[in-house]
């Protein structure tokens, strides 16, 4: 018979170090992603009927929606920002014998992010 050995871990381990806390906050921002996905599904579902889409559009213009969006935007930017900060750590590039500057990788990812965001805004608003 085999038994699983589990090391006890206090529930509040993530409060003990700033880095652990930031990690847990980052993981929990995924809840905001979930909430926003429901909105996208609503948009897709309501677009079939003019009346239903009007309800959706009116909801977007309301103050409740604006507040929720601000919270989600903050969390989404935290999620994206921490991900960009992480890219040089997971992508270690070497050019000949020299390591490519981590800031260059993070910088290039940031520029890509801004370009994609700009392209979407241009596509939607033009």
């Amino acid at each position, binding site marked *: 018979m085999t038994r699983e050995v589990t090391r006890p871990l206090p529930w509040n381990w993530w409060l003990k170090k700033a880095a652990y806390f930031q990690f*847990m906050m980052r*993981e929990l921002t995924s809840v905001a992603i979930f909430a926003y996905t429901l909105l996208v599904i609503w948009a897709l579902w309501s677009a079939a009927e003019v009346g239903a889409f009007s309800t959706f559009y009116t909801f977007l213009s309301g103050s409740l929606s604006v507040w929720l*969006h601000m919270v989600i935007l903050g969390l989404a930017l935290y*999620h994206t920002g921490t991900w960009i900060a992480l890219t040089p750590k997971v992508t270690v590039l070497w050019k000949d014998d020299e390591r490519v500057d981590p800031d260059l990788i993070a910088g290039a990812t940031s520029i890509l992010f801004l370009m994609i965001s700009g392209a979407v805004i241009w596509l*939607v608003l033009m």
Partner: protein
Amino acid sequence: MLLPVMVFVTGVAVPAGWISEEDLVSLVRNPATRLVLVGLVFLFLFHWAHRFRYALVDLGLGVVGKQAWLFYGTALIGTIVAGLAALRL
């Protein structure tokens, strides 16, 4: 990568009146947009399912976190609903 700008569109551009209801509905009805949105729903939901599940395990709520079907099932159902909605248009 795409979430902040999408939140900007629905949370800032729409309430600010930069995009009208007619423009937004025709954008959502565009087949290319529909395909992209369903793809994003799939990615967002599975991203959430995985992270949220392991976050719960890490927080000591392993009993809930280990019910993998609950998270990936929700993500799958959400994707199917989004797919059906896109086909309905």
